[in-house]
């Protein structure tokens, strides 16, 4: 059941990304282009997503445990440090260069198009390097 549930929510997540416009990198770049011809569309995607989780997460976390498991697996660290800021800064540069963040890039693999394959291959290399050499 845990796997079925993860599968279904992964599918729903992908549908949300696609319907919202997150799998169109030119739109992301248009949204990030705040000093130019700004495309505000994605503010509604992120606003809709965060508004939903902002209301539901606290209600869900009042439970002692999730429905299918014994405990919630939550991030434990709550302090701001240099790797957090440096990593986020690097990610932002990559996001701005391409218009892809990880979720939309993975969903776009189904197009089989070489720009997506190249991006995801190098993203995997980056993740693997950081997995190996950086304590996370």
């Amino acid at each position: 059941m845990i796997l079925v549930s993860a599968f279904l929510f992964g599918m729903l997540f992908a549908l949300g990304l696609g319907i919202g416009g997150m799998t169109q990198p030119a739109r992301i770049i248009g949204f990030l282009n705040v000093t130019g011809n700004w495309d505000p569309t994605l503010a509604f995607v992120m606003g809709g997503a965060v508004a939903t989780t902002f209301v539901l997460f606290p209600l869900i976390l009042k439970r002692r445990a999730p429905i299918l498991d014994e405990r919630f697996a939550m991030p434990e660290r709550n302090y701001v440090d240099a790797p957090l800021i440096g990593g986020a800064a690097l990610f932002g540069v990559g996001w701005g260069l391409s218009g892809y963040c990880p979720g939309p890039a993975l969903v776009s693999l189904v197009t089989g198009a070489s720009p997506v394959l190249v991006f995801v291959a190098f993203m995997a290399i980056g993740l693997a390097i950081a997995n190996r050499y950086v304590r996370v």
Partner: protein
Amino acid sequence: MQAFSVVTPLLGGVLIGLAASGLLLYNGRIAGISGIAAGLLPPWDRETRWRLAFFSGLLTGGVILSFAYPVAFSLPPRSLPVLAVAGLLVGLGTRIGNGCTSGHGVCGLARRSMRSAVATATFMTTAAITVYLIDRVSPALR
């Protein structure tokens, strides 16, 4: 500003929020895509299975979109070398910074996490600066 529609972005956003909330309610896990992707690479552990299931769901959703709503997909207006560098930066950065748009943005802000708020503000800022630089200073980078 360009002409834009509000309904599909809002609907897409709510679906993303419901998916992240559902994964938390049923599985007790954070829907952080970079962490899920990193967990698919070795070394594998007990968490790998659900991550693989979620990833399979993402791809299945992608297949459904490509048949039912093919306009959802367009390709980045960038050259392959630029995309390679971008992919590497996204992989390194999300792993070092412990999250991306989904983990820090959609889930972290909902948990009222200071780490995630700082991370989100940081990557939104550097992303906007990058787009500005490409747009104004170096169109050749496209």
